[in-house]
């Protein structure tokens, strides 16, 4: 798994690529926690390059969502790969996240 972060004026976009399972979920959690601790609470995750997303990875998404909502922000998902979308639906977590066709739309939504 790899992550790449772009910081805009009001929104921070993190692009996640590769496999997110219990071997890599910790790295994703650390990267997202760092953003939240820096006070970045308007987050967009670009999931277009996600090849595999297990419940361990989904757990990180939910804990980050809780953290940013607490500080009045949100975590929104953009450009979901079919695999990421299926994983989120199968876990019944689609109701928790706002999702957008592409990252531009997600950034503009804030």
């Amino acid at each position, binding site marked *: 798994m790899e992550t790449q972060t772009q910081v805009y004026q009001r929104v921070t976009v993190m692009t996640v690529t590769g496999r997110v399972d219990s*071997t890599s979920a910790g790295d994703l959690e650390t990267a997202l926690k760092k953003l939240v601790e820096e006070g970045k609470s308007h987050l967009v995750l670009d999931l277009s390059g996600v090849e595999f997303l297990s419940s361990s990875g989904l*757990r990180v998404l939910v804990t980050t969502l809780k953290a940013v909502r607490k500080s009045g922000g949100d975590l929104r998902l953009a450009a979901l790969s079919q695999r990421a979308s299926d994983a989120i639906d199968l*876990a019944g977590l689609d*109701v*928790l996240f706002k999702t957008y066709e592409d990252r531009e739309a997600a950034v503009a939504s804030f």
Partner: protein
Amino acid sequence: MRTAKPPSPPSERRRVRTRRLTVPGDTTSLAGVCAFVEAAADAGGFDERTSHACQLAVCEAVENVIQHGYRGERGTILLRARSGSGSLTVEIVDDAPAFDPTRYPVDPRASLRDARVGGRGLLMIRRVMDDISYERRGRQNILRLTKNRVFTGV
């Protein structure tokens, strides 16, 4: 005069294929487990989306064994796959304490207030697979996951 039993036709012989894989009970095994399930799903003639759903389900079951069964103790996990035309059965065999995931209650609804994210893996397994059975044989857990329909989404 004795007559030999006629051999089964080639198509019949090709129809079912079995494979097995033994992995250490730690998370570094997960990518290999996915590759194993992908090959077995291919042999069953499943499309890419169904194959991925099966990989998710089997990996969730294996992760459960690693995290809640072995809990950091050393152990191995045996996978046995049987691929037929349009069907796939994967057995996950481990030596961890008895745990029957078919009896574990799972709430399909998720809310941020009480998101029991821990139970999500079991929900994923149940939503993907068409048949799930569990057996405790001696000191082994045997979880049998079967897919015989194309996955088209939840």
